[in-house]
């Protein structure tokens, strides 16, 4: 447990900014447009969810210079929504006593990895067809094995 920085509470996440890499930000915008999604956080959530499917830890992102999204937007402002996301992220990371910074870095890494895979789904597996895209995502989930903690 990191004692130098306060241990993260749910309420801390609400006002925290989460930044992707600039590449991820660009792909996020492109996919948002392609899928006709109204907000930036929509593809971001899908990306983070998809990355969490892979039990291996994502590669840390060095350049988190994309446009930020507040925690209450990215994960939802309802306590329970936030709690589910935080639970999944912390469980995947296997970390005890995660701090705000650690969470920001983890989210940036998942966002990046997930967005790369999401883009691949869109362009290659789904042939840029929305119905195929969602169908392939539904197929994908459940194929991965349990993550190691």
């Amino acid at each position: 447990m990191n004692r130098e920085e306060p241990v993260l509470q749910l309420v801390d996440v609400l006002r925290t900014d989460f930044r992707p890499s600039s590449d991820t930000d660009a792909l996020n915008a492109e996919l948002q447009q392609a899928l006709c999604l109204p907000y930036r956080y929509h593809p971001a959530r899908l990306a983070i969810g998809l990355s969490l499917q892979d039990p291996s830890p994502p590669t840390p992102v060095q350049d988190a210079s994309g446009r930020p999204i507040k925690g209450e937007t990215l994960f939802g402002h309802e306590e329970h929504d936030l709690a589910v996301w935080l639970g999944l992220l912390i469980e995947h990371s296997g970390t005890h006593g995660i701090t705000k910074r650690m969470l920001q870095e983890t989210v940036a890494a998942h966002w990046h990895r997930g967005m790369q895979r999401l883009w691949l789904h869109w362009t290659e597996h789904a042939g840029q067809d929305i119905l195929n895209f969602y169908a392939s995502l539904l197929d994908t989930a459940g194929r991965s094995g349990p993550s190691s903690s």
Partner: protein
Amino acid sequence: MRVHSVISPEAWRFVAAAGAEAGLGAGGIATLLEAGLQHGGEANRRRLFADLDSLLDGEPFSPEAPASEVEAGTPARVQLRSVEARNWSVYRHLKLDLPEFTPEQPLVLIGGKNGAGKTSLLAALVFGLFGYLSVSDLFAGVDRAGRMRSAYRRRIESLLHRPARDRGDLAMSVALSFDTATGPLRIERRWFLSADGKFEDEDEELILQVGADGDLLPVPPGTDPTAHLQAEITRRLLPPTLAPFLFFDGEQVERLGGRRLEEQLRLGVESILGASYLRAAAADLRDYARDRIRDVGPNRGEADASTLAEVGELEAQERDLLERLERVQGAIGDSRSGRDRVMTELGRLSGDTYAALQDLLEQQRRTEGDTARVKAKIAQFAVEDLPVFLAGVALRDQLCHRLEEEESAGALTADQGADLTIDRFFEVLVSETRPSSFAVTPELASRVRDEWVRWKAERSAVDIRHHYLIGRTREVVRTRLRNAELTREHGRTLMNELSRCTAAGVDLERRIREQHGWSADRERLQGSLEELTANLEALDSERQALQRSIDQVRSALEPKREQLRASLAMQGAGLPATRRARRANELAGLLLQVADRAAAAYSSELSAALTRSFRELAHKELIAEIAVGADGRIRVTDRNGRAIDDLQASAGERHVFAIALMAAIAELGGASLPVVMDTPLGRLDREHRERILQYCMARRSQTILLSHTEEIGDRYLAQIEDRIAVQFLLEHRPDPSGLGESVVTEGYFAAAGAR
């Protein structure tokens, strides 16, 4: 007599009857036409006027035409027995011998691909029979300016067989043999071109041989041999005016079929009756009268000449106005038929189709709404359920499992002791501080308890990873994680819904696009309707204006005629020139009357023949009668006497109508004459083709069909094969120079024959 070189004996009886009604007599008409035909086409009028001087000075015309002319009208079967041509168009030498006609086998079939010489063969027949009289646009009437001669010369020059010209052989000929009522008749026409390929009128020679021995037909002294022999051809065979109805190609039928019905009929009638010759003779007489009155003297004569000129001018105006009126009436008829068709079409489109379009548009609106709703659900699903689902069942299970473990360790639950401690804490707080507005609500109690548990957990010996999840939140998280698996089914349902909506949308769009095509048709038809209505109004105004002009011309014409008659009568018999002019003037009026009366009488008989032939040829069973009214309009009626307006609906039917008209005119002109048709079936559908072939087989005289294999191929050949007397094939054989020649062999196309 020359008159029979332009009017057949059969048609002549209508002219003669009209002449008798007009008090002129057949003999008078024949004499006047004779004079016109002798010199009427000449630019210098002196010879014509001199002939008319002696005619008008003489005894009154005999009411009867010479007996031999009348007798000549007796129809008898005529058949073509041979065609021989030298250096004629694509043929160096052509020789066709046809068997004697039998009613069982009335057909002669001559095959040839394009360029093999079918049209050249037809031309050999027509030019051989009629010489320069064959050069005129079908029904174009007489070219008084001599253009016919010049066109004929050019045509003859172009018809010389090219290899013959190259080797300096500049003579060509066509010889036709017929069996006629008076025995065999052989017509040979020869043309001689100059070294530079030019042809002059005098370089044509016409020879007629009659009888089994082929005796040369003598030419009476003092007569023009060609004119005399040409009249004999008309008398013994047929006049040139009838030729377009007996010897025709598809192009000719097409040209006639392209005209309005009224126009087709009028042109046919005028042509057969030689009406243009009668009108030309009337114009000659007016010219003559004007000229002679001028000679009377400077005062009265000039005044009368001026009146006569005015009469001539007014008559010309009247004719011109009547022709324009006829055209306008025809156009009104066409516009009315067009308007009726458009309205029928519009009625059809505005009924079921329009309602169906509205229904489809409503369905499309509903489908679009459904699609939008499903897409909104998918967007919500994509942002709420799907991301957590995507994290995968393994991670979700793992988290659930850990949360349960942490709870079972007891570190994250408040025990009864803790609850008592918290209760005691609030009692002390309230009693010691006595705050004015402080109440221990259940929410406050719950939060304090959660903080207590968290504090306790942080100091617990158990490794708590999700210490921030306590109390009810922890339960909700676990429930959501467990339920996430349901997302898959929910997602599938949404995808299926979207798929259905998309497919329905595509289908509707396709159907609406089709309907929009009809809708575009509707707009186009409405545009046409407005245009036609405006056009009709304009035409009707024009018709009324023309009718007023005609009335004005007629009201001006009658007093002038009366004034002229009175003036010429007052000048008495003492002045021969005046007397002759007066008589010429009267005769001109009579000839015009004859032309109109003969046309009316002939039209009536033609209507009956046309009804018969059209019903035979067209598959329009409902047509009972085609009648030509007094106003020249054609009225087509069904069995109940109701008018049928859609006869002109298709080009194919007009084509059939043209052929029916030809058949009717041929029938009136003498069903006993041979008919030669060059690829006449091209545009027709199967049923019409079969009917026309049926008609050919039923004819009581020879029918020669020129055809290519696509026209009369296997199917149609099978239909007529038993009725064919002989078959020939025309083939073009090119030589190294690229020109070559066409030759004829017995038989038909090998492919068609080898069925």
